């Protein structure tokens, strides 16, 4: 198998790199570098066994904390514990690097003129400086191993949460539990009769037989308006028996719950009936089949066709006329047959 062979080769290469990093012996420094005149004013080689061990201990602790993040993410995804481990790991890593910078590598003060970018002399000087910075550092392998462990654990802590991006959306993406003959019930599961929906009242409805009320598209709002006032899009008259209308509670703008119903006691001196989303005040006119009256939503509030059974209980006559759920950016669509 060519693919298997390629993977095996890649793994071998990775192991080789890791071994080379971890077990590289310190070479003689600056063997091929030309000696240049160093502008150093003051130089102090600080490296000591104590400081190195401190840094190693902190790197190991950081590695443990960061690995702990990965383990907790898989075993016990508690956000407090996750925050604690990754926070602790990053703080330890930062302190370890700061201590290493202050107490393990040589400290020096220098002055030099500005050079053009890419200046040969400057590059040589920097290479020189990098080589020299290893001076006096003991237990190089141990230090590199601890650093490598912390880096590996940190890398895993960054990559593992990608699993939280979630499962693939179901297909078709926006199917709802509603369909022909599905009874409309209240939060307690009691059927709602046509006579309980008075003009001016707002009733929350759910599909019968669906345990989980948070199922996508389940929740609806039922209102009643005088049949004479309705200006529904063509073909929807049958879905509003006696002027009873049902709408999805998911705002087609950003998906907030439509929870405001405006119904005037005395129409001439008050604003007309409307379903309103409390997040961005998208306002929908129930008389016109949920057409947008005001606000940022790009399409009408999806209406659910209703019918009455022989006991005058409400049931769905089909699925929603439009797609339920929030819209992607820039989606704009008017009610079919609506001129405005």
């Amino acid at each position, binding site marked *: 198998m060519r693919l298997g062979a390629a993977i095996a080769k890649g793994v071998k290469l990775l192991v080789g790199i890791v071994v080379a990093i971890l077990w590289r012996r310190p070479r003689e420094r600056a063997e091929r570098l030309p000696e240049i005149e160093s502008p150093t004013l003051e130089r102090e080689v600080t490296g000591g066994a104590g400081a190195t061990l401190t840094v190693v201990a902190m790197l190991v602790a950081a590695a443990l904390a960061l690995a702990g993040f990965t383990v907790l993410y898989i075993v016990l995804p508690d956000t407090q514990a996750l925050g604690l481990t990754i926070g602790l790991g990053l703080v330890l890593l930062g302190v370890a690097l700061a201590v290493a910078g202050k107490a393990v590598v040589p400290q020096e003060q220098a002055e030099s003129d500005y050079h053009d970018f890419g200046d040969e002399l400057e590059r040589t000087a920097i290479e020189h400086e990098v080589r020299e910075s290893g001076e006096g550092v003991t237990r190089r392998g141990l230090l590199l191993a601890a650093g490598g462990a912390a880096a590996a654990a940190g890398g895993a802590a960054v990559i593992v949460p990608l699993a939280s991006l979630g499962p693939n959306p179901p297909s078709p993406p926006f199917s709802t539990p509603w369909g022909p003959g599905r009874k409309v019930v209240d939060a307690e599961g009691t059927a709602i009769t046509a006579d309980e929906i008075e003009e001016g*009242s*707002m*009733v929350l409805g759910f599909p019968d037989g669906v345990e989980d009320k948070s199922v996508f598209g389940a929740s609806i709002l039922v209102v009643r308006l005088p049949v004479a006032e309705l200006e529904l899009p063509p073909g929807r008259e049958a879905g509003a028996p006696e002027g009873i209308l049902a709408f999805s509670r998911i705002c087609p703008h950003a998906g907030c719950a439509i929870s405001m119903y*405006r*119904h*005037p006691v005395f129409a001439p*001196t008050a*604003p007309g009936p409307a379903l309103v989303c409390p997040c961005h005040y998208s306002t929908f006119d129930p008389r016109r089949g949920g057409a947008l009256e*005001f606000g940022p939503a790009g399409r009408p509030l999806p209406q659910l066709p209703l019918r009455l059974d022989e006991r005058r209980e409400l049931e769905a006559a089909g699925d929603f006329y439009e797609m339920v759920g929030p819209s992607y950016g820039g989606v704009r669509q008017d009610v079919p047959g609506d001129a405005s």
Partner: protein
Amino acid sequence: MSRGRRRFWIVASVLLGLAAIVSAVAADHPATAAPGASAEAPPADSVIVQQGRRLFEQGCSDCHGFDAKGIAGVAPDLHGVGAISADFYLRTGRMPLDDPHDEPLRSDSPYDQGEIAALVAYVGSLGGPGVPPAIDTAGADVARGQELFTENCAGCHQVVGQGGIMPGAVAPDLRASTPLDVAEAVDVGPYVMPTFKRLTDDDVADIAAYVTYTHDPEDRGGWGIGHIGPIPEGMVAWLLAGAALLIAIRLIGERTTR
């Protein structure tokens, strides 16, 4: 202390005590008499209804018409709205309204308790539901009330009950609302508020108990910063975080003395 002075103090304290009792009784009287006590509507020819009719003709007939049948385009017919509506609108000062196109909002009523009772009796005599009995929130379930409030009321009034806005209208702050106000509003649906007649009396009592709870909610502790929302919290965060950053910069940074 002389004898005369002592007698003066005794008399004064007795008088003060009597005054306190009288005022307590006087204050208690309308509060118990106004809501619910007169569940039976007084007959149309009773004195209180006639007094209410006179007050109505003086104060309300401009918009609602002399016979309370309303004026097209100005104000609605009051036949059949019931004493419950009149009690809600008048007791909370939502009526009378300066301009019929204004939104009725809670205000100080120009009428005293007796005048309101008379007007309520008159509107009640035109038919419709009576004032509901006093709401007992003693045995109500505040947690269930919060659930029902969140489901039905919080969209407009906010979960903390402090009101909000909607296009074309204001959802009022409920911090001055009594349990009876809540029960009446749920049934009447004043101005553009919908009615919630599927709620049972127990549901309404629970909701009223929750609304009462929001007037003085239990303090969860912590640093409230006046409980006025995210803006002071953001300010404090910036000030504290800014100070912490300055300290960190001062500690990390080095001064070159050259």
